[in-house]
Every structure is written in C-alpha cells, then in structure tokens.
C-alpha cells in the first residue's frame, strides 16, 4: 500500500493520528529513516514544518522565490559572534526535503581519521570505519554519488586551479549526488532539472511507495511522554505563510527527531528532556565558511559550470578545506562594496569575477539558547585558533587568485575595497575585527551529541536519548565533533544505521 504527501494547510480542523513511528523533519536524516522503516513494514508518519512543493515547481523558482518558500526564514538566521568572532549567517531548508534540497550536492564520507577518533578516544566503538562502510555504500547508491568530470568545471574553477598549481597545490574532483547535471550553478536554490538527487527525489518517494504518510505544514512543539517513555508528539498545523491553524497530535510507539541541529534541541527543551547532562544545545560546530573573489581582465562568467566541482585538502593540517563555489549573479553583485554609482560600477564587472571558498574545521563554541519566540537565540564564540585560521584561509584564497592572474581580489570583509597584490601584502588580516568578516555556515552540528555516558551526551550509540526511552535523534545534532567536510552524506549514513538499530529491537506496545 502506498502512502501520500499531504498538505497540512488543507487539512480541515485538527489532525489526530496513530502510527508505529513518527518522524519529525523530512530532511536528509528524516527521509532516510522514513524509507528504511517503511520498507521494513513499519507504519510511518513524517511531520514537516515546511511546505510541500513539487520538484519542477521548486526548480522553476527564482532565487528570491526559493528563499521565501524553501529556505528557513528567508535565510535571515544567524549565530551572533561573541568576543572576536564573526556573525555567521546559518542557512537551512524548511520544506519537504529539508536542507537536502539546497545542497551544492557535495558528498564526502566522514573522514576516516574522524571515525578513528570517535571510536577510540571518544569510545564510540560502533562507529568504526569498517562498521559504517556498508551504510555509506548504501546511501551513495541511493543518491547516486558520482565524481564531477573536469569538463563540468566553470572557468572560475579552472582559473583557480591554475593559480593553485603555480603555488604548488592541487585540486581534486568533488563527488556529488547528481545524475545528468548540466552545470547551471543553481543547486542552492533547487536544481531546475532535478539533476541533484536530493531526498525529495530519492528517499522520500521510496518511503511513500512503502506506505509512509508525509504531512507538510506540521510544526511539532513537543514530545509526549507517558509511563517513562516517548509515546507521541504534539504541535500545530500551519497555513502557507507559517501561521498557526489547528492542533496536531500523533500517537506513536517510537518517536524519531530529525529536525536538524538547530531545532531538535528546542523540541527537547520544550518537552523538558535532556536537562540532566546540560549539554543539549551546546558544543555546536558550524564549519564557518567564506569565499574570496578574484577579478580578471578576461570574462569568466563563472556561473556556467557545476556549482561545486573541485576541492583541496592541501591545508588539512591547518584545519582548512578549500571548495569551489559560486553564487547567483545577484548575490555576487551584493558582495561588491559601496552604494550608488561606485557600487554599480563594480557590479558591472560580475562577468569578470571568479569565486572560490573554503571552510574551517572548527573546534566548536556555538550554543543555542531558548529565544522569546519560536526561533532559538544562537551565539558563537570562535576559538582563538579558529580566528587565526580565518585569516589564513582568506590569505590562501587571495594569493591563489593573484597567482592565477587576477588583477584584484575582494575579501569577505564588510566595506573593504578591492585589493591589488601590494595592498594585500600590507594588510594585517588578524587585526581586522572578526565582526567585519562575512562568514556563512551550512553545517550546524553537534547540539545533542552522541556519547557513552549520560553525563556528557544526549543520545547513546543507537541514537536513543538517555533521558527518555523510545525517543531517538538521528540528525546532524548527534555528531560528537565537526567533520571538516560537508556533512550530508555522513548524516544520512548515520541515520541509516540508526534506522537498522531500531529495527533490531521490537516496537514497544502501543499505549
């Protein structure tokens, strides 16, 4: 029996359901668990706060339309820097398919040295490279991970590689979850050709085919406990603009939270769960990322080519990963300094701009706090070493652009004019207040971390919360440390593993 995707906005009155498993969040992790459990014969309900849009309709959206219908809060979500730390714009999806709809498609397994650290130093003995390998294999098959051919590179990436070679380091082709990518560079605003195998095209259809019922426009507010275990969730139905409508109650024998590293902690707090350890909402890592723009005499038109095609781990020892990137022309224009004629003169040069980015493999320092409304209040105190790494990253990217022949670079520093090589050479990046550095993050992780004891972690190695049996967390919040690489594939593999662990245990009786 197949299931269906329902629009909560069209449900009249309240919604009251009973099921085997209820999953909160339909993004990268929730979709995997939904498919695995439904295919194993369990009755699954997925509740998603965002709306449901058909892939073709999303693909046809302009970036601003995508921002308001598919992104969370129009991307105005940020972590506030404390001390010498930047304000970090943290980007997330809010629709059926979650952030998976917005990825650049970059796929990395969790690096082996990380898994060795987790399984030895942190004692997470179930997370060895060998034990996780089958899950990576299965997810990679399901989302069609392939190597980006060199022919798909944009002129921007080709130029950057030329500079890198001259400085003695190389770029490696990225792997992405795509099929028939035409290199339209629109991945972050949903692929126009459904060439990116996001979960709305892969795991969610599988889940529905196996009988899962997915409800869009359903915001869960709390987990319902009974008799010392989780027995359901409650919340509200929403209209198309996110305003509250009817009430929502789903009774379930097992509850799975997959609401992301920002929203799963809020659900725990609202439900009075996880107070004991004091680690809920703490230890957040972000992989702060930035990009440097090189301006060339030649036309680059860097938006022709795969959005992300190559990376470099040449600076891994300094905890830096360099990744090719591009942004819509309108956003690219916005990164130019100034206002009025001076600004427009720079915007007129966008055809001549190349973009390359990188991220810091950060030590943490992020923390969620309960806000006044529904959004958390998020702070980020950047470690000193990470602040130094920011300067180093900017310097590497800028030097590489000059080696590639750029005449000027634009650094991610608010209001800073374009610099020529001599101006860059005299600039002391460490002395620029971090609050002036333009940083973004697409990878919040670690706010409900996994561990081996309840005093220092929120979930055990199966993803079950220490405080409330029957309640599982499967999203990026469970990662015990940052990864230094894009996390989606790792999150999905860990979710697949958690799903199979759930299947190993019989479902408790319904109450």
């Amino acid at each position, binding site marked *: 029996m197949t299931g269906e995707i329902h629009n909560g906005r069209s449900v009249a009155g309240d919604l009251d359901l009973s099921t085997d498993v209820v999953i909160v969040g339909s993004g990268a992790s929730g979709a995997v668990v939904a498919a695995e459990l439904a295919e194993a014969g369990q009755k699954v309900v997925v509740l998603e706060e965002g709306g449901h849009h058909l892939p073709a309709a999303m693909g046809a959206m*302009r970036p*601003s339309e995508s*921002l308001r219908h598919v992104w969370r809060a*129009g991307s105005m979500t940020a972590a506030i820097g404390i001390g010498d730390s930047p304000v970090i714009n943290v980007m997330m999806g809010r629709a059926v398919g979650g952030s998976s709809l917005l990825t650049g498609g970059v796929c990395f397994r969790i690096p082996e040295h990380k898994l060795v650290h987790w399984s030895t130093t942190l004692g997470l003995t179930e997370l060895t490279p060998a034990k996780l390998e089958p899950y990576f294999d299965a997810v990679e098959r399901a989302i069609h991970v392939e190597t980006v051919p060199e022919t798909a590179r944009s002129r921007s990436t080709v130029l950057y590689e030329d500079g890198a070679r001259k400085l003695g380091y190389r770029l490696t082709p990225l792997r992405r979850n795509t099929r028939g990518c035409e290199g*339209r560079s629109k991945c972050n605003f949903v692929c126009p050709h459904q060439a990116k195998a996001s979960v709305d095209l892969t795991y969610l259809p599988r889940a529905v085919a196996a009988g899962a019922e997915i409800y869009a426009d359903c915001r869960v507010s709390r987990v319902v406990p009974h008799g010392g275990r989780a027995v359901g969730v409650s919340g509200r139905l929403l209209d198309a*603009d996110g305003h509250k409508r009817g009430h929502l109650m789903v009774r379930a024998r097992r509850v799975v939270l997959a609401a992301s590293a920002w929203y799963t902690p809020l659900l725990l707090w609202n439900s009075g769960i996880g107070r004991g350890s004091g680690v809920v909402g703490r230890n957040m890592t972000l992989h702060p990322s930035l990009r440097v723009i090189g301006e060339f005499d030649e036309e680059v038109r860097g938006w022709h080519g795969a959005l992300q095609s190559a990376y470099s781990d040449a600076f891994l020892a300094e905890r830096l990963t360099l990744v090719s990137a591009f942004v819509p022309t309108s956003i690219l224009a916005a990164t130019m300094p100034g*206002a*009025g004629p001076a600004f*427009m003169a720079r915007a007129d040069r966008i055809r001549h701009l190349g973009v390359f980015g990188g991220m810091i493999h950060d030590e943490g320092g992020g923390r969620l706090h309960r806000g006044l409304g529904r959004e958390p209040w998020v702070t980020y105190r950047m470690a000193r070493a990470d602040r130094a790494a920011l300067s180093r990253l900017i310097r590497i990217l800028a030097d590489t652009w000059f080696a590639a022949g750029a005449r000027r670079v634009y650094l991610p520093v608010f209001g800073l004019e374009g610099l020529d090589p001599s101006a860059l050479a005299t600039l002391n990046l460490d002395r620029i207040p971090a609050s002036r550095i333009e940083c973004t993050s697409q990878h919040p992780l670690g706010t409900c971390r996994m561990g081996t004891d309840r005093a220092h972690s929120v979930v055990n190695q199966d993803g079950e919360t220490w405080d409330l049996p029957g309640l599982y967390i499967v999203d990026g919040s469970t990662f015990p440390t940052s990864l230094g690489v894009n996390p989606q594939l790792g999150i999905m593999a860990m979710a697949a593993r958690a799903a199979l662990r759930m299947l190993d245990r019989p479902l408790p009786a319904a109450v």
Partner: protein
Amino acid sequence: MSTATAIAEALFARPDAPPSASRLAAFDVELRLHFRHCGAFARTVFGLALFVLAWLAPLWCGRLPPLARLPLARRIAVLSKIEHSPLQAAFFAVKAIFCLIYFEDRGAAVEIGADTPAWSVRR
C-alpha cells in the same frame, strides 16, 4: 517614498540617473511579497535592519533622519559611509536581499552582464 524604495533608489543609482520609477515600483511589490511569505522572524530581523538604516544611519553621519527624506546624493553618501561603521551588518543584510530581488528584473540583470534568464523575470 518608503524607506525600502529610498534605499533601493540610492543603492542602485548610476552616475547619470537613479533606477526608473517603474523598476523601483516592481521592486517594492516583490519585496513586500517576499516578506509576506518569509515568516515572522525574517520580517522582524529585516524590520530592525531597515530601522537602523532609516533612523540611526543618518544620525551616525551627522544628518537629520529619516533617511528617506534626504536628497539622493546624501542618501548615497550615508549608505557608503555606513558600510564602514558599526552599523554595517544592517546595511549588509539589507543590501543582500535588495540585490537578490532587484537583479531578478531581467533588464537590471542584463545591464550588469548576467546572462542567466532562469534567475530573472522580464517585467
């Protein structure tokens, strides 16, 4: 003129002229639509940023607020200066959203050399 339109007029002005009235009107409609669907949080953050630019930015530059009442050349001068002030984050947030929406007008996109028809709309 609304604060948002006054900022857009200054931000996107060229040496010879500000953007046409029809382009600004279309921008205004699209911006309102955008914030109607973005949710309360985004509206609040954006409203705060606009407030900072409308009232605090002129004061910071020694001008009498609100920004929308200043002549075009003064508005451009205020915005350029604010980019180097402690109020810069507000300007950057507004600039990012404004550029995203303004350059989705096919004419505005083509003017700056963006040949990406799927990202813009002919008005």
